[in-house]
C-alpha cells in the first residue's frame, strides 16, 4: 500500500513536469483493476429490489448470468454454482446513468494538457468522443463509487462539436468502455441575445453580426451535408463521377437519415425556440439539452415528441425576478406536461469530477414536487431510453444488463452509501483515489494517536 502511494507521488511530480512543458498527459492511471467478466451465476438474495420499470420487490432475489439478468422475484430458482450474496436489508437499484458529461475527456480542467473535450473549429461532426476517453482517469472510479455506472460523454466547442458516446465506467480500453457510439451529434446553438456589461468587448452590432454568421453556418453546413449525401448516393448511377470524400459531411449522413439524433444544446428561451424551429424544419431526430427555460416550450416538445436532457436542478434561476425554486421545479413542469425527460448534471467541465452528485440533482426535483419514482427514473431508465438503450439497461428486468447497485438506502439520499456494484455482471471495485488517500491518512492519525494520544485544540 505504502509502496503504491510512493509511486503515486512520484507520478505527481512527473505530472507537474509535464504541465510545465505542455506535453500530453498520459501517465495518470487509477489503481482500480477493472471487473472480471462474470464467469458464474450470481444472485443477490433477500433484498428490496427497485426495478424502476415495474413494482418494487420486497425480500426478493435478482439472478444474473453472463452479465444479463435472468431471474427476478421472490421465488427464483438458482442454478448450480450460483454465488449467493446475502443482501438482507439492502436495496438494489439499476445503475445510475449520467446523460450529459465530459467524463473521460478531461482530468483537471485547469491543466490544459488534460483537456480533450473541445477540438478546434466550429464544424467538426466527424469528431468522436469515444476514441479519447481515458479508461484510467481517476475521475471514473470516483463517480462509480456512488453508483454512476454509465456516462453519456459529449464533446463540445464550436457549433457542431462531434458525436457522443455512452460508456460504462469499467474496462481496460476505451473500446471496452464504449457501450454505444455514436449516440448523437452535438450541436451547440448560438446565443441569441445581446450580451451587455462591463466585460463585454464586442459591440451590439458586432454581436448580432457574429450571431447571424453562426446561425448561417449551421444552416449551410446542413445544406452542404444534404448535397453531399445526394452526390454520394448518385455515385453508383451510370455516368455520375466519384465525389471526393469529406469526413465531416460523411459523419452527418446518419443524422440526415434520422438514424442518429442531434443533441441540440440550447439554454435560453430564444435559443431554444430558434433551435427547435430550425431542427423541426430540417426534419431531424432531436434530443434537446436544456435548462430551466425549457418550461416555456413544454407543449411544443410534447407535440413533436422531443425528449429533453434537463441540465440539472442545482443551479440558480436565470433571471433576478424568477422564483428561487425555478430550476428545482422545472422537472415537475416537464412531467406534468407529459414531456419525456431525464435529469443530468450541468455538463460543465467542472462537473466531470463531480458526477457522483447526479442523484442529488434528481432528489432536488423530488423535494420540489416531482414524484420520487419519477426522480429515480430520471437518472436510470429515462436516460437509457432517451439515449436509445432503454431495452438493455436502465431498469432491473429479465434480459437486461446486470448493471446495478446495492445500497443501504435510497440512492437519492446523500447519506446512503453504495455497497456493491455490478456493471454487466462484473463486480466493481468501489475504491478510488479518494478512498486510498483516506486510508493513507487515517494511518497517519492512527500512528499519532498511538504515540501521542488524540490531538485536540485544547
Amino acid at each position, binding site marked *: 500500500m505504502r509502496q503504491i502511494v510512493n509511486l503515486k507521488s512520484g507520478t*505527481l511530480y512527473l*505530472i507537474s513536469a509535464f*504541465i510545465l512543458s505542455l506535453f500530453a498527459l498520459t501517465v495518470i492511471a487509477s489503481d482500480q483493476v477493472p471487473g472480471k467478466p462474470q464467469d458464474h451465476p450470481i444472485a443477490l438474495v433477500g433484498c428490496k429490489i427497485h426495478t424502476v420499470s415495474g413494482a418494487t420487490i420486497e425480500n426478493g432475489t435478482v439472478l444474473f448470468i453472463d452479465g444479463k439478468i435472468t431471474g427476478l422475484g421472490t421465488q427464483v430458482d438458482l442454478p448450480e454454482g450460483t454465488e449467493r450474496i446475502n443482501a438482507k436489508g439492502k436495496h438494489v437499484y439499476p445503475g445510475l446513468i449520467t446523460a450529459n458529461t465530459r467524463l473521460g475527456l478531461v*482530468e*483537471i*480542467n*485547469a*491543466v490544459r494538457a488534460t483537456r480533450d473535450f473541445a477540438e478546434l473549429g466550429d464544424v467538426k461532426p466527424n469528431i468522436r468522443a469515444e476514441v479519447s476517453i481515458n479508461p484510467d482517469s*481517476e*475521475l471514473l472510479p*470516483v463517480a462509480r463509487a456512488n453508483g454512476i455506472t454509465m456516462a453519456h460523454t459529449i464533446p463540445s466547442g464550436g457549433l457542431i462539436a462531434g458525436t457522443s458516446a455512452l460508456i460504462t465506467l469499467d474496462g481496460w480500453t476505451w473500446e471496452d468502455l464504449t457501450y454505444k457510439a455514436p449516440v448523437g451529434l452535438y450541436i451547440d446553438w448560438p446565443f441569441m*441575445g445581446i450580451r451587455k456589461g*462591463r*466585460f463585454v468587448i464586442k459591440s451590439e452590432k458586432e454581436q448580432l453580426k457574429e450571431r447571424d454568421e453562426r446561425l448561417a453556418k449551421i444552416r449551410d453546413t446542413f445544406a452542404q451535408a444534404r448535397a453531399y449525401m445526394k452526390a454520394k448516393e448518385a455515385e453508383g448511377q451510370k455516368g455520375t463521377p466519384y465525389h471526393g470524400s469529406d469526413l465531416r459531411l460523411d459523419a452527418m449522413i446518419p443524422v440526415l437519415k434520422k438514424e442518429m439524433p442531434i443533441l441540440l444544446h440550447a439554454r435560453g*428561451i*430564444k435559443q431554444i*425556440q430558434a433551435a427547435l424551429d430550425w431542427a423541426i424544419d430540417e426534419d431531424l431526430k432531436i434530443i434537446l439539452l436544456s435548462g430551466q427555460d425549457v418550461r416555456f416550450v413544454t407543449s411544443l416538445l410534447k407535440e413533436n415528441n422531443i425528449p429533453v436532457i434537463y441540465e440539472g436542478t*442545482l443551479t*440558480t*434561476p436565470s*433571471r*433576478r*425576478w*424568477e*422564483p*428561487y*425554486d425555478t430550476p428545482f421545479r422545472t422537472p415537475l413542469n416537464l412531467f406534468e406536461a407529459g414531456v419525456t425527460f431525464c435529469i443530468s448534471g450541468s455538463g460543465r467541465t*467542472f462537473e*466531470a*469530477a*463531480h458526477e*457522483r*452528485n447526479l442523484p*442529488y440533482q434528481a*432528489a*432536488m426535483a*423530488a*423535494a*420540489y414536487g416531482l414524484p*420520487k419514482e419519477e426522480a429515480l427514473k430520471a437518472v436510470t431508465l429515462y436516460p437509457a431510453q432517451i439515449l436509445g438503450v432503454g431495452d438493455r439497461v436502465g431498469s432491473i428486468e429479465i434480459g437486461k444488463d446486470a448493471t446495478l447497485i446495492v445500497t443501504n438506502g435510497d440512492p*437519492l*439520499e*446523500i*447519506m*446512503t*452509501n453504495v455497497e456493491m456494484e455490478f456493471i454487466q455482471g462484473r463486480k466493481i471495485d468501489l475504491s478510488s483515489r*479518494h*478512498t486510498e*488517500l*483516506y486510508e493513507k*491518512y*487515517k494511518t*497517519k*492519525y492512527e500512528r*499519532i494517536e498511538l504515540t501521542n494520544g*488524540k*490531538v*485536540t*485544540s*485544547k
Partner: protein
Amino acid sequence: MQTFTQLSRYLRTPLLGAVFLLLFFTQSRTQTKPIEGIRENTPKVHALMNARIVQASGRVIEKGTVVLRDGTIEAVGAGVQPPADARVWDYEGLTIYPGLIESYSHLGLTKEKKKSSQTSPEGGSQKTKTGAKHWNQYVTPEGDILAKFKPKEDDLKKLRSLGFTAAVIAPNKGVFSGASVLMSLDKGSVNDLLLKRDVAQNIMFKRPGSRRFGGGYPNSQMGVIALIRQTLLDADWYRKAQLAYSLKPNGQKRPEANEALAALEKVVLGKQQVLINIEDDLNFLRAAKIVKKFNLKAIILGSGHEYRQLELVKASGLPVILPVNFPEAPEVESPEDALDVSLQKLSHWEAAPGNPARLLKANVRVALTTAKLKKQEDFYKKIRSAIKSGLSESDALTALTMTPAALLGMQSMLGSVDVGKLAHLVVTDGDLFKEKTKILEVWIDGNRHEIEKRPEVDPRGKWQITMNIPDGEPIKRELELKGEPEKLTGSLTQDSTSIKLTKAKTSFKRLTLTLPGKDLGFEGVIRMSGVVGKGKLSGHGKLPDGRRFSWLADSREPLEPTSEKTKKESTKSERPSFIPVSPPGAFGRLAPPEQPKTILVQGATIWTSGPQGNIENGDMLVTNGKISKVGTGLQAPAGAMVIDAKGKHVTPGLIDAHSHSGLSSINEGSQAVTAEVSVGDVINSYDIALYRELAGGLTAANQLHGSANPIGGKNSVIKLRWGSSPDDLRIKDAIPGIKFALGENVKRSRSSNNKRYPDTRMGVEQIIRDRFEAALDYERKWLKFSALKKKKGIIPPRRDLELDTLLEIIHGKRLVHSHSYRQDEILMLVRVAEDFGFKIGTFQHVLEGYKVAEVLAKHGAGASTFSDWWAYKFEVYDAIPYNGALMHNAGVVVSFNSDSGELARRLNLEAAKAVKYGGVSEEEALKFVTLNPAKQLRIDHRVGSLEVGKDADFVIWSGSPLSTYSICEQTWIEGRKYFDLEEDMKMRERVVNERARIIQKVLAANEKGKSKKKKSEDKPTH
C-alpha cells in the same frame, strides 16, 4: 422696483463689495491685452421692456423692465424707466427668466487620444512622469482644467439653446480628477469667461480601468474607496509633515514633495467642497460614509436612483445634483425579450421620473443637470416627465438657478433676476417648461445670444379681407392664418365654403399667400403679398391672368401668442403607482418583518447543535428575538405566537463561512497586498442571492474578498436581513477578518507571463513575512512618535491603512481567513503566524487539511472546506470528501462552506456529506454548517446553536435537514421571519402582477410615442 440707490446700499455690504471687486478684476482682464486697430465701444446698456419677468421661483413681475449695464443687472421692476443711454428692446409677450446654471459638464474638454501607455499592475503609470505627482495615476487633483478647456462654439450653442448661461466644467479622468471651474457661456476668451475657479474638487466614485485586470490599482469599487480614504489621510499627513518640516528643517528627513496631496489640503481642512460622482444608490450611501468620516464638504452628483434609498439619502444631509437620465422604455414587445427585463428595471423605468420630486419632498437640496443624459437635447422632455411625476415647475426652476448658484457659492451673482447680479437671462415665448415654449434668446454677461429668430411680424388670427379685383366686385372673405409665423396655414371662408391657402409665409415684415383661384372664378393660382401692420394687412396681388389687384385686411380676432403655451397642457401630475420595496425589484419587502414579542415553536424535532443535542417533540420559546427556553412540554405564555411544528425539524440558522454573495466587488487583484480594502465597503444588499440563500435556510455569512492576492481585503460578517441597508446587514460585534490566499491563484498560474511578485509558493511566504515585518516597523515608528513629549515641528509618521490592518492581525484583533489547498502552504502559514505570535482564524478550502490535521488542531485554526470538490485544478487533485471527517476527528473545528451563491442555498445537504464520507454523526455533521462556522467567525456567543440567550436565528424544515427530500419552510433571524413559503408565494404573485402592469404601461407609452411620432411625420403632407 430696484433702483440705483438700492444697489449702492448693497454695495456697502462687504461681501457683495468683494464680489464686485472680483467682477471688476475679471472684466479688467481683457483690458490687459493691447488693442490692435480701432477700439470698439458699443454701449452695453440695454432695457428689456414690457416683459413678464420671473425673477426667481414665485417672484413674478407681470409686466416690467430689466435694465442691464456692463454685464450686470442695473434695475428690475414694473415701473422702471429705461435709462436715457439704453438701447430699448420691446419684449411684449415674452418672459424673462434668470439664466440657467449647468452644475456639471465636461464641456470643452478635448478627448485625450489613447496613448498606448503601459500601466504597471501596481497602478503606477509607467509613462514618464513629469512633476511631483502622486504615485497612483488616478490621483490628479492638481490638474489644471483650464489648460484643457477648449470649448467649441457648437457645444456652447447647444447649452445656450437650452437656456444655460453658465456651466461647471469638471475634469473626467481618474478618481481624484481635479478641481472644476464655473464658466460663463458667453463668446470670448477663457480670460473673459471664467466665473469661478476651484468650484469643487472632483471625485469619481468608480473603478477607473476599463478592462478586468487592466488599468492597475484600483480595479474594483472597494479599491477606489480605499484609495480615496488613504489619499485623504495622506493629504492630511502631507500638510502636517510640510508644516513640521518648515518649522524645523534641520535634522529631519525631508518629506516628499507631492503636488497632488498639496492640492487636497483645502479639501481635508473642509475649506473646499468635493463633488462625488456616483453611479447608483448604493454608491451614494458609500460616498456619504466617506464624507461623514472625513468631515468633508460635499455635493453628490447623483445617478437617478436616489429615491430607492430616500431615507438614507435624506439622512446624509448632502445636496444632490440630479441627472434626468430617466431610462428609455425597456424592450418588452416580444414576450421573450420581456423575460429578460427584470422587475427592478421595469420599476425603475416607472419610478425614475419621480426621483427629483421625491427628493425635494424629503427636503433634499436638489440641482438638476443635463449630465449623464444620452441626448442633451432631450433635457426639457425629461424635465417635463419629472414634472408629470410630481416636480413643480417652480422647484424645477429653482433647481436650475438658485440651488446650483448656492452650491457653487455664487448666490450673490447668479440664480435670479436681481439688481447687482450678472446679466444672465433667458428669454422665452412662454412658460419655460411647457412643451410648445421656445427659448428665443439668452443674455450672458450682458450680451445677447439669439437662439431662435423671433418673427418680426405675426399675422396669425382672423382677418376680414377685401380683394379689389379690377373691373369686378371686390371679393370679401374671412382670412384665417394659423401655425407658425414663418410657416402658416390658412383659409379663405365665406359662409360654409372655404378655400385652403396653398402657401402662406412671412419673411421680414412681408406676408406672401397663394391660393387656387377656381372657387373665386379664376382658372389658376392667385398670388398675393403685402405688409403686416398693426391690426392691418395690405398689399397687392396677381390674378392668374397677370392682372394686378390691391387687397386689404382688418384684424377681427388676433391670436394670443402665449395663450397656446400656457394653456392646459395636461398639467395634472401622473400618480405613479410605484410602491417602494426594499430592496427594489422582485422579492423586495414592503416592510421589515415583525418581531413578535414571544414565539413558541411546538412539537418539532429540534437540532440544537448545542449541549442539549437533538430533542424529539421539542419546543422552543423565543422572547424579543432571543431564545429563552428550549425543551419539551413548554407552555405558551399569554399572547405568544404559537407555531405548530409537529413533524417538522428545527435547526439553527445555517452559516456560510465563505461567501461572495451580496458584494459589489470581490477582488482588488491589482496588487499582491491589499489589506487596506474591505468588502464591507461594498456590501450589495440588493443581491438576489441573499434572498435565495434565505430560502435555503442560511442566516449568516462570512463575506470574503477573493483569492487574487496573498494578502487580500478585509471581510464582513452579515446576517441575511433581506431588505436592510448594507450597514444593517452587518453583525456589528463580529470580530473583523481578512482574506489571505496561497497557491495557484496568487501566483497567477493561469497567466502565461506573470510579472507580479510572487510567482511561486516560496515567494508567497516571503511577501507575507515582509508585510508583517513592515507592520512592526510601522508600529515602532508610531510608538516612538507617541512617546514624544513635544511634537511640535516633528514630522508625524504617515497613517498607512494597509499596515494598520496587518497590525490588527498581529495583535489578534483581526482574523485571518486564508484560502489554501496544499498541505505545504497550510503548514507554512501556520509557522508564519506562530513566528508573529498570532493564530490563523480559518483556513478556507483547505482541501489538503486532512494531511496536516494535527497541525491545524494544535494551532487552533478552523477549517472551512468544501464538502467534496476536487480535480478542477492541479492543487486540488488530492482533495477528498473525507477531508472534513478526518480533520474533525483530529479535533479541528470544521465547517463546510459554499463559495457560491448556488451552493449556499443547500448547505444542510453539504453537511450530510460528512455523514456519508467518514461517518461523522448526524448531529455533529449539522454543526459543520451551524455551530462550527459560528465558532470560526467568533460569533458563537450569538448564533450557531439553539441555546438560551442566543439570537433566535432558526430554520423550520419539512423533514430532516440532512435529507435531500426536505425543504426549508421558514427562516427566522432574531425572531423575525425573513423567509416563509407562503409569503414567498404571495411575493411571486406580486412580481407577476407588477411585471404585467408595468409592461402594459410600457406598451401603452410606446404606442403613444409612436402615434405622436407618426403625427409629426404626417404633418408636411397636409
